[in-house]
């Protein structure tokens, strides 16, 4: 026990900063943090930007943010895992977000999800093995007037049917 404490592990931070120095996106992120004057309450804003730049929040990225904002890594990790919007796993090339708000649910969004699930052989929140498509569920995107709504790569599509969803997925997979 004593031996493990005495034996100092190589600093993780050093490798993180080395990693960061070779990547331009970290620079952009730092500029963004500077815009917020490295304020600790801007953490969520910074994580938004980080996810926008990198697509997902990897460990090194979270450590980098915690170092720059002078926050304990536990706090940054805690916030990143609390909010559904942040993802710690890389997403696929394409994303299919099925809205599961009440209006969409009542109008049959579950059937759409089941159809896509069956077609891709993955569960919501997962990515296909070839990294092509991620299937996600949204809690409500506020497009209730045109339910059921599905967001393909950021484009909202109204009145989706299981058939039209599978068709779109097949187009992606075929490419």
């Amino acid at each position: 026990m004593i031996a493990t404490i005495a034996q100092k592990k190589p600093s993780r931070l050093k490798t993180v900063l080395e990693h960061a120095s070779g990547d331009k996106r970290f620079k952009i992120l730092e500029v963004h943090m500077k815009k917020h004057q490295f304020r600790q309450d801007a953490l969520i804003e910074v994580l938004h930007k980080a996810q926008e730049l990198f697509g997902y929040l990897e460990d090194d990225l979270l450590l980098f943010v915690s170092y720059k904002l002078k926050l304990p890594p536990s706090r940054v990790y805690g916030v990143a895992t609390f909010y559904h919007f942040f993802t710690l796993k890389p997403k696929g090339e394409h994303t299919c977000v099925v809205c599961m708000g009440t209006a969409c649910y009542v109008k049959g969004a579950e059937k759409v999800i089941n159809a896509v699930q069956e077609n891709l052989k993955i569960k919501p929140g997962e990515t296909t093995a070839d990294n092509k498509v991620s299937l996600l569920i949204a809690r409500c995107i506020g497009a209730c007037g045109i339910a059921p709504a599905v967001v393909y790569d950021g484009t909202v599509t109204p009145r989706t049917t299981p058939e039209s969803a599978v068709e779109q997925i097949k187009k992606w997979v075929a490419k």
Partner: protein
Amino acid sequence: MIFNDLIQIKETELAARKKITLRCCMAAGCMPSDAKGVKEQLVKAVAEAGLQDQVEVRGVGCMKLCCEGPLVQADPQNLLYIKVTAENAPSIVAALKGGQANVAQADPNAAFFKKQLSIVLANSGVVDPERIESYLAADGYQALHEVLHETTPKDVVVAMVKSGLRGRGGAGFPTGLKWGTVAKSPGAKKYVICNADEGDPGAFMDRSVLESDPHAVLEGMAIAAYAVGADQGFIYVRAEYPLAISRLQIAIKQAKQMGLLGAGIFESPFNFNVDLRIGAGAFVCGEETALMASVEGKRGTPRPRPPFPAESGLFGCPTLINNVETFANVPPIYRNGAEWFAGIGTEKSKGTKVFALAGKIKNTGLIEVPMGTPLRVIVEEMGGGAPDGGKIKAVQTGGPSGGCIPAQHLDTPVDYESLGKLGSIMGSGGMIVMDQTTNMVEIARFFMEFCMDESCGKCIPCRAGTVQMHHLLDKIANRKATARDLAKLEELCDMVKNTSLCGLGQTAPNPTLSTLRFFRNEYEALLQPDQFGPRGNGEAAKQPAAAKQ
């Protein structure tokens, strides 16, 4: 900026108006159906027809009838084109000179529009949300000027109390009382927060207001800030609403450029800044203490109250938190007077309420009606009833915190108290209509799954209780439960309701309780006979045996 400048801009804007206006809906309801392409093609068609001097094509906010989008309205002809495609544009422009356009039309005099009373949505579908001049032409920011120069903060609060406005976020706390408490709280620094974290699935009123009339919310916040003595505001908006975020950013920038936000507004000593905070997908952040934690960049977990935010809120300072719709009500109240507002609605619920009508109903979209309007008028006359000859079974209000109101109670007037009596709540305004094909047990399970996923995990009744309740509902829905499970479910509902820390847990059992109250037979029909007897003591089971046959 002084008052004369304001009038000047208004008059310039009005003078620049052309004889004919084609208003194109550019809100999130119509955008997915290529509303942008429609607008571009209309501009092109107008230019090709050589009508630029007479016809203005204006992008506006939500025109309410979302199910028929994209919508284009021609004024002054008062024609409402529905399901417009980009190819229809030349036909619409040609029809302006007389003749008939080859596009489907909706009747602007139908009950859906005629029964509405627009206060919050008065500018929605009329002004261009991306141009502040358009809002100024509709008498925008005049209420703020009047408040800053002609009244004291105390009088502003008094007028708000007199108007009888109650919070539109769901709980219905009197707005004037809240303003008064924050105003009286000692402290040099105070904050105003606009809660635009519209988490209820099936509700999209706040999104529409922000997309259609962002300046009304900013003006309302500025008036509130003057009343309570705050100089910094935050709008906490969901990340799921990218269009609302971009419109707000534009609105804040324009208002700052014109000196309507920032330092020394209207050459008075009053300063007010507004910053945006983008949520990250957590339903619990609609709860005020959780929202403040999130604005501070922390995990969005609620904390016990008191102290209430009015005394110790954001960064420990007195904080005023109101909903989007509440703030949007503020400028009309000061423009038209508190008495005018108090004259609308019922005795205890004043003014109007915006509802998002969706689900199994013909006309889905936004409606704004005076408080006290019977549900039947909303659902049957305005909504047009269930589509495809279906029968309305229930109306769900209040999202995962509300309940299902069965068809036999459709004559209930919509106000805070009446809905509360039926075990539902007004909520933020989501109204989902269900027809006879909807399984109520599955609806209860759907909402419970939502609450289970969204529970922040801070207090045990909610964290563990929602999981257990979902498990029991799942068991019932899969025909594996007995009468004892149902009794356990009811017991758990009561426990979670009474012992949870915040509103999420306290209201999570509501959808289950209200469906149990009105549709108990659906639950009982799924129960299995209990082989150990109702008390689990080996007594032969008697009652729910009938269910299996």
